[in-house]
């Protein structure tokens, strides 16, 4: 391990200390996080700020999921290479039905190949930063290396029914994001869960409300329910609160449950 500044070592030790009493297989996660590449993402959402905040929170497994892009994943994975946390490359895809779906990949080559595929399936509409927000691509030191020029908020031309085949091709896993929201969600836009998509997980933003008074019990029974932060600013990142029973705190463990 290369020499790290003292505060980094302290942060790493604290992160390890936070989780030492948790039972094995109980993996605390936040698998839906936006960086400053997302036009609606705060400019403080740099890769190192995200990484360090997640270490402070004591999370075991996180994923970077910008809108329709994986272009800040190389920087975050590089920044986190020695950190005691697993970082997965991912994307929050907007399907042609304007449904948000979180897609995760085992490693950068698959993620960046998918990034290119999605980029090729976005409308050729340029971002207007003063209306939609800036779309910063960073290096592992948080230095801007450019801006994505296509507007990432747009719907891709990829239909949700095409996702099983695509995940097979790019070796990824996916689940519909925040199904309990009134926009960009599977339930609001399509009215139900298309069985042909074969989803095994569902993301519920506010399970306390969604499952209150025994509602949606069948979804709880049939699917793995995830609650992620969908953070667009540092204050929203998940606490060490939600966990999944995984055989290993990595993509393989997650794929066993959701793939």
């Amino acid at each position, binding site marked *: 391990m290369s020499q790290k500044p003292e505060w980094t070592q302290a942060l790493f030790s604290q992160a390890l200390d936070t989780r030492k009493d948790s039972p094995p297989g109980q993996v605390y996660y936040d698998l839906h996080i936006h960086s400053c590449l997302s036009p*609606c993402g705060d400019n403080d959402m740099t890769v190192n700020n995200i990484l360090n905040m997640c270490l402070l929170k004591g999370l075991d497994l996180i994923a970077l999921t910008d809108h329709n892009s994986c272009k800040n994943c190389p920087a975050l994975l590089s920044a986190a290479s020695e950190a005691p946390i697993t970082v997965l490359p991912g994307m929050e895809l907007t399907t042609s039905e*304007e449904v948000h779906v979180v897609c995760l990949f085992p490693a950068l080559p698959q993620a960046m190949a998918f990034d290119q595929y999605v980029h090729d399936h976005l*409308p050729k*509409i340029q971002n*207007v930063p003063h*209306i*939609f927000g800036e779309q910063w691509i960073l290096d592992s030191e948080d230095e801007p290396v450019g801006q994505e020029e296509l507007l990432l*908020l*747009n*719907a891709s031309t990829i239909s949700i029914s095409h996702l099983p085949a695509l995940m097979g091709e790019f070796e990824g896993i996916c689940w519909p994001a925040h199904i309990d929201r*009134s*926009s960009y969600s599977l339930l609001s836009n399509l009215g139900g869960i298309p069985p042909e998509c074969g989803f095994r997980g569902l993301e519920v933003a506010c399970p306390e409300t969604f499952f209150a008074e025994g509602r949606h019990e069948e979804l709880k029974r049939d699917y793995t329910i995830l609650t992620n932060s969908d953070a667009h600013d540092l204050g929203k990142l998940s606490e060490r609160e939600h966990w999944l029973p995984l055989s290993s705190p990595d993509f393989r463990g997650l794929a066993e449950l959701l793939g």
Partner: protein
Amino acid sequence: MTVTEMAEKLGWEVLVEGEGACREIQTVYCCDLLSFVMGRAPADSAWVTVMGNANAMAVALLADVACVVLAEGAALDAEAAVKAKQHQIAVVSSQGLAVYPSAKAVAEVCGL
């Protein structure tokens, strides 16, 4: 007819006024898929939709519509209200009317 006059005549609530409320309505446009609206909504139209989120307000600004008409009782969320105020986008609620009657009412009252 301006957005303010239209809302007054129809008895609809103006959720966000700003300078946008003085704009003249030239036509009516209905769609909820923002990526469609972005490239297709005519400038100076009354855009009838159920999308009351911040991205919808950004799209309204980009498409330069005269106002947003929220149909079916759709709510304007807090973040969207801030964005609409900031960019002077008029937002009107059609008081629970469905999309078609909302659009028809605007067209009729504006003599379109």
